[in-house]
């Protein structure tokens, strides 16, 4: 449903997106994962037709977005990055507007808007101006707007950013349901867990390039390898002294030591025992989650 070939975007001097190619088929959730400035949003914006690619092509359902923009856009549902609903209109009016822009007949759009209001638990505020809604509610409205059109392709740029756990889960459930109904979903995220949970394939993007396309299992392994326990002792300790069992590698970060491990729950008691037996106080102790950069290194083979 989505075919991207050698897509490139150059802004003045930066190659924001550099010869990116991938395809997403029906009933697939494809993730674009990468740090800030990787080029995820720029890629999505070329797919939605608002930025002209410097080179390369993008096709949506067989329609080239530059040559047949209206046909291609008709197939899409979009959550732009940091998008807003019209703050002076109510959620209800915002949804109807989307319905009109996609040419959905009146009866149908009112029905659809009604069901989305229910689905996103917005009925209490449906006639209040969006300006008066909380940030999370506002975000739910913008995701609901993307779903007004019965899309064959969903393009979601960080759809769950800024949402509480429950709203994020709701949106993930909705994304999964859309996939089951045959939609091709392209989503960007910084959230490793989210990518892992939703996507069938994940493209790791950095500096405008796709470094690797992975299945979540491989990513999981990378995530595990890059979890660490960070500890600071009152007195200086050599790296080799805390190289406990199940620690893969030790790194010094300033006055702290970082113990990379797949099992932080096993390492923590060992650190505490060590502190007791050597009478060396622990000043701070924390578990550090997987860091995107680390995961990239792992996945792209730069690590170990």
């Amino acid at each position: 449903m989505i075919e991207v070939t050698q897509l490139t975007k150059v802004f003045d001097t930066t190659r924001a997106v550099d010869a990116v190619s991938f395809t997403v088929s029906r009933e697939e959730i494809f993730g674009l994962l990468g740090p800030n400035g990787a080029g995820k949003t720029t890629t999505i914006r070329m797919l939605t037709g608002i930025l002209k690619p410097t080179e390369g092509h993008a096709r949506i359902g067989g329609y080239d977005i530059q040559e047949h923009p209206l046909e291609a856009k008709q197939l899409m549902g979009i959550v732009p990055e940091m998008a807003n609903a019209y703050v002076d209109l109510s959620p209800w009016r915002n949804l109807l507007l989307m319905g009109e822009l996609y040419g959905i007949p009146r009866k149908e759009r009112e029905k659809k808007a009604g069901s989305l209001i229910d689905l996103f638990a917005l009925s209490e505020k449906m006639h209040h101006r969006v300006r008066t809604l909380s940030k999370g509610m506002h975000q739910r409205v913008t995701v609901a707007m993307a779903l007004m059109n019965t899309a064959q392709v969903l393009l979601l740029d960080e759809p769950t950013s800024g949402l509480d756990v429950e709203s994020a889960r709701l949106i993930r459930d909705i994304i999964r349901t859309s996939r089951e109904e045959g939609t091709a979903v392209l989503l960007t995220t910084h959230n490793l867990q989210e990518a892992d949970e939703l996507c069938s394939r994940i493209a790791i993007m950095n500096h405008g390039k796709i470094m690797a396309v992975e299945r979540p299992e491989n990513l999981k392994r990378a995530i595990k390898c890059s979890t660490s326990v960070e500890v600071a002792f009152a007195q200086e300790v050599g790296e080799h002294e805390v190289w406990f069992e199940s620690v893969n590698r030790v790194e010094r970060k300033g006055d702290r030591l970082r113990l990379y491990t797949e099992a932080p729950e096993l390492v923590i008691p060992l650190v505490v025992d060590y502190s007791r037996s050597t009478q060396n106080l622990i000043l701070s102790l924390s578990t550090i989650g997987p860091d995107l950069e680390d995961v990239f290194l792992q996945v792209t083979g730069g690590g170990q």
Partner: protein
Amino acid sequence: MKVIGQLERSLAVAKKDLLVYFLKGPTLIFGLLLPSFLFIAFAIGRDLSVEFLMPGLLGMTVFFTTSAVGPVIAPWETRMRTFERLVSSPIAFWGIILGDVIASSAFGLFITVIVLTLGALVEGVGIITGYLVVATVLSSFCFSSLGLMLSSHPTSDPSRIMMLSTLIKFPLFLISGVFIPLSEMTSARFISMLSPLTYYVDLARLSIEGTGYLNPGLNVVALALWGSAFFAIAVLLHEKNLDKRF
């Protein structure tokens, strides 16, 4: 893609514009007060007949009300981050601009109709001729398109566009025959021809005073040509600058 479907989508954009930008207390009050202020400033201390004042007043009203709010739509949507979604939906770019033009025209026409009604109460309904109706509708399209054209600069700061549009609109206003009828001008007449407002005021004089200077058909054609040119340029410039808005 069918044109009718696109026009319906333009109407959806126009409806959104009216709800979001036009039908607000301050905007409406401004729109209604503007002609009154202009009228007072124009008429005060001068012994002029209502017939003479009316065409100029109508011209000012159409000109300033239709081009007042339209220019802020694009920068405002850029700033509020609503533009991206509008452009990514399946509406042709001309359809979006047309929607904005329709909303601006509707707002200007609404105010002009009020002024015209008041004028008709004073002067008798005889002043409303077919030419005046055609001219008013065409002019709203023309001046709204002018406003939209001026907002194509890809900024997210509405005040910059307001400044720019004032810089362009005032000269066009001053050289038009609002203050002095074309028949009384000498060489200035040719400069006056450069302003689309001139053609509207001339038609209004024909309707209200009974005599215009130019051929009424020519006036209508001139308004239509200026309007189409402004609209086409507005669409082209907005499309060209789109990349720079994101």
